[in-house]
């Protein structure tokens, strides 16, 4: 056994142990979060798989550029293998997100901006595989799919990073989990816009009352599909200028908070908060999360290189069959 092979084998065993360690840490080391319970542990799986999806599609695009430049079969195999691995990670990110959404948001699919864009990305790459399987001429298939892959890769940053952030409100991390970031919330007025939307929840302002140092806001909340309608009364501490009572949305573990009140004009700034805000500020969660990113990156490298090897071997076997007339 050569030194290189021995090193490769050792790296794969290390990856196996590393990922097993992450799984153990995900369940036993990462703490529970108030409101999210055990569902908060999903961050160790969901976010790294989503990030590796972007890495995989970017790697695939680089291989496609190399193929168009040098016309080497190995580059085409690399592009397909990386795209397939990226697709797999994208499916993992989506399904793990759906599992989380079902527990925390009450339904597995909310048509949240990020959910919608990741679905579009999945469809774009599914079309890439469909295109490859639709063309019989091998050379043409490689050339056209490489060009298509570049167009697909161009949409990826927009769909994963730009579009979800352009949305006014989303249930996703950029306003719920990552410390320092926030949704802007919505202003509702007694003498103006009384109805607004936070994510897919419709809010209707019913009244604002002052009880001593507290401003109590009465808000009618309608959940998606009108499953639940409830009257919530979040409050705001006037002296400190901070939210006081934050009631839970019916059937969900998100909270409704009043972030500002203008008693003179009868206005209130309402926002949605996730109980797990600041999830990564815990050092145990943070390091497990970072280790998970490294582990999934290693898994992606192993997966796509293995798949590229298999594709190249298939190619060699096909040529062998043509040359010698032997069964593959």
């Amino acid at each position, binding site marked *: 056994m050569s030194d290189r*092979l021995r090193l490769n084998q050792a790296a794969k065993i290390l990856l196996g142990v590393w*990922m*097993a360690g992450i799984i153990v840490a995900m369940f036993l080391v990462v703490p529970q979060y108030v409101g999210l319970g055990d569902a908060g542990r999903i961050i160790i799986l969901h976010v790294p798989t989503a990030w590796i999806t972007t890495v995989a599609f970017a790697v695939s695009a680089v291989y496609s550029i190399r193929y168009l430049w040098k016309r080497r079969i190995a580059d085409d195999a690399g592009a397909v293998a990386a795209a397939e691995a990226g697709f797999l990670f994208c499916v993992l990110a989506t399904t793990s997100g759906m599992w989380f959404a079902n527990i925390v948001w009450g339904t597995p699919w909310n048509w949240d901006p990020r959910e919608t864009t990741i679905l579009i990305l999945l469809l774009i790459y599914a079309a890439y595989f469909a295109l490859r399987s639709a063309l019989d001429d091998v050379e043409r298939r490689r050339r056209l799919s490489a060009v298509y892959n570049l167009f697909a890769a161009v949409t990826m940053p927009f769909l994963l990073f730009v579009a979800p952030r352009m949305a006014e409100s989303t249930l996703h991390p950029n306003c719920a989990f990552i410390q320092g970031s926030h949704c802007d919330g919505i202003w509702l007025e007694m003498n103006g816009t009384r109805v607004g939307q936070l994510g897919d929840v419709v809010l209707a302002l019913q009244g604002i009352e002052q009880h001593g140092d507290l401003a109590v806001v009465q808000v009618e909340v309608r959940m998606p599909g009108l499953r639940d309608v409830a009257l919530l009364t979040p409050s705001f501490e006037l002296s400190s200028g901070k939210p006081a009572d934050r009631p839970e949305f019916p059937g969900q573990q998100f909270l409704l908070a009043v972030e500002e009140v203008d008693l003179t004009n009868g206005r209130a700034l309402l926002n949605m908060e996730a109980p797990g805000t600041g999830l990564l500020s815990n050092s145990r969660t943070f390091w497990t999360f970072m280790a998970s990113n490294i582990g999934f990156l290693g898994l992606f490298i192993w997966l796509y290189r293995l798949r590229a090897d298999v594709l190249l071997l298939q190619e060699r*076997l096909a040529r062998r069959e043509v040359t010698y007339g032997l069964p593959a």
Partner: protein
Amino acid sequence: MDFLLEPAIAIYTALAVALTVWVGIFIFLWRIDSATRELRRRLDEEAPAEPPATPQATLETRNGHARETTVMSDKK
């Protein structure tokens, strides 16, 4: 089997399931990896170590007493 889903035990059950799934995936990948390596080795062995002999022809022209030999080959 209901005891596996009791609140105090459920987290360990989930951990065991997740670990089992990972071990299964790892073994699956390892086996494909080994099979791929073995197949590549066999194909490398099967492939001729040297390129096939280049077709050659030897022409001998006799011109009286002199004899001239020319070797023709399409080797570049």
